[in-house]
């Protein structure tokens, strides 16, 4: 018994040494737009901007939880259906051609959001609607909508308070559901939402301080409403220049929106975060790079012939499937 424990300890130490420089194994993103109705077009554009970036930088859809309270792309008032643009010149269509929304419309509630974070979803919830992060996950949380001092409004009917938000994150920490969290919020008085956080390893950034409004960027006259918020507009502009291999640091990202362009003051909370943001590559949160090991020595396995149960064997001849070239043109069919 003692031998095993010693062996185990030695093994632990080697593993710790081997991986001490890298700390996360997978990435997750929770992106939430909490407001509906056409005049809140900009919030949908915000959340889709971040969605576009994390997806482009490599987080797979299965690890992105996207909550959108309204469907602007297919809104009858949208003059260009199936598009959501980040500016009036239609520079970037943030809707793209492949958006996988996990919670939509009236599913975007405080309850669903807190249940998602804490992992207390009703049994039978599809895996795509669950945050299956673990102690090796870096989680990006992005919230946008209408906020006030100490709360964020969900859908005109309810709100999440900063205390509830902090408690939810603490429950995540206690259950080892994250390694690090990057918390981004683009709302009015955004800084009030992260003031109460008390769990470790969280870096928080908000588009405005308490008492400040967060401002929108510009109006698209053909749409007739504000098209995107300032903070996210500049964040997207920065992220567009990042690629999966690049080594841009998080501290550069924290400075994307100086007061001269944002008008509101971007708030940052670093006291819960252990690492120096200037040494953290932005792809630690916005990308997904898995650690790789090479397989060197192969254990040779002698095959054991296993007898299948006879009843299982299909008696009918198995259907033969084959690959057929995709149909390019109907004229090529010889009918």
């Amino acid at each position: 018994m003692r031998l095993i424990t010693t062996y185990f300890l030695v093994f632990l130490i080697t593993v710790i040494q081997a991986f001490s420089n890298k700390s996360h194994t997978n990435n997750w993103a929770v992106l939430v737009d909490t407001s509906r109705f056409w005049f809140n077009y900009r919030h949908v554009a915000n959340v889709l901007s971040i969605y576009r970036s994390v997806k482009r930088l490599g987080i797979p859809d299965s690890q992105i939880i996207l909550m959108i309270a309204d469907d602007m792309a297919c809104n009858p008032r949208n003059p260009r259906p199936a598009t959501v643009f980040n500016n009036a010149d239609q520079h970037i269509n943030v809707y793209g051609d492949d958006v996988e929304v996990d919670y939509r419309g009236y599913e975007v509630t405080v309850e669903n959001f807190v249940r998602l974070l804490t992992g207390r979803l009703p049994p039978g919830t599809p895996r795509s609607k669950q945050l299956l992060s673990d102690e090796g996950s870096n989680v990006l949380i992005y919230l946008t909508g209408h906020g006030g001092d100490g709360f964020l409004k969900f859908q005109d009917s309810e709100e999440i308070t900063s205390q509830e938000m902090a408690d939810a994150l603490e429950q995540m920490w206690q259950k080892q559901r994250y390694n690090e969290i990057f918390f981004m919020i683009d709302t009015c008085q955004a800084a009030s939402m992260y003031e109460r956080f008390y769990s470790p390893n969280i870096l928080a950034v908000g588009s405005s301080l308490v008492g400040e409004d967060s401002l929108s960027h510009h109006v698209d006259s053909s749409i007739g409403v504000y098209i995107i918020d300032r903070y996210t507009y500049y964040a997207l502009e920065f992220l567009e220049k990042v690629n999966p291999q690049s080594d841009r640091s998080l501290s550069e990202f924290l400075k994307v929106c100086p007061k001269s362009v944002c008008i509101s003051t971007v708030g940052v909370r670093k006291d819960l975060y252990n690492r120096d943001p200037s040494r953290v590559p932005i792809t630690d949160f916005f990308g997904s790079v898995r650690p790789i090991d090479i397989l060197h020595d192969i254990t040779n396995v002698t095959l054991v012939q296993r007898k299948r149960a006879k009843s299982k064997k299909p008696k009918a001849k198995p259907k033969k499937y084959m690959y057929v070239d995709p149909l390019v043109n109907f004229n090529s069919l010889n009918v």
Partner: protein
Amino acid sequence: MSNGKKKTPKNPAKSDENDEELIFRIYSIISFFVVLIVIGLPIWWYTTRVYRATLPLTQMENHVLNNNSEKEFRMPLSLEYDVLITFAHSDPLNPEVRIKGEDLEDKLLPVLESISQVFDFVIKSQWLYTFDLGVKLTKNEKYYALSRDQLPHVITPLEAKLWSHMSPRPTINLLVYFQRCGDLPLYVFDEKNQRVSSNSFFSSRWGGVHVINPDEESCKTGVFTPNLQSITSIFVTQLQKLFKIDNMLDPDDVYEFKVRKSTEMVESTRRTLKSLAELLSEIKSIVISEDVGEKIRLAVISADMAKEYLQNSYVDKGLELARVAFKNSEEAFGDPSLLSLLYFPEDQKYAVYIPLFLPIMIPVFMSLSTLRTWYVSKKKSE
């Protein structure tokens, strides 16, 4: 007695007729007081409190946490896993590959049998046609190369196509990539730029990738039958690396693995229970129903017993109990009912009830002074 009789007619000299009504007023004050304060308040308190079943809190908290910093590089602990075998081929008829998932399952299952006491495995297989690795391969006169730096970027785009997240269990991905004829051979290189003899790599918590180059003969005939033995060996090695077990076929290693996993499960159970106990003291609005309480008690007992069995080297029994403890602690922590008071937090309870109670309570308390004057005057009169 006679004295008292004498006095009573004397006292209410001021309000003779009021006397009989006064006593009813007093009764009504007392009844209001009893209904509201003595019965109502406790009922209100009892029905609106956050329900918590009695828990073995000291046992839950009584646990020293170890430093688990290496944990993120193991497979996430679970009682069952999916093994998803994926055959990926960029050019399906060049050559046609003849291999069936069932055949591999038959070869893998006997090996996995050795650790099936610890975990349950579900083996699935799928084909991905016209699939490209998504990285630019460096070409040489003799071969194509997949360099060490490119390997992570092979896995990232793969994840979108594998659909491994469809299952409720964690998935171990085992991918075989067949290179098409014409672009042969494709080799994997390590950090020292040496060719990797196994032509395969793996990523902790995700799974492994194995690149197979069809031989020239098969390219001529157009039909390629891969060597099941070598694929099985690669898969088994990848699984051993993922689970950090030296040799799945060596009984000593399997024994050590069982001990380690049972210890981990007990450790995880204790950690979960401790976290829960801490949360219960931090956050007041968490509800613990009887059902959840039962699971917690079961987890506490099973974890203790498992630990005892493991210390006495009854590994199989210990493992069984560790599994029970782990399952119940996870279920208890993740139970949806813990959040049932989400919309009614403790700090807002008073904000909701005070406007309701104040208008009723003020007259009741004020009438108490009437009761007092009545009582005092009665005493005096006696």
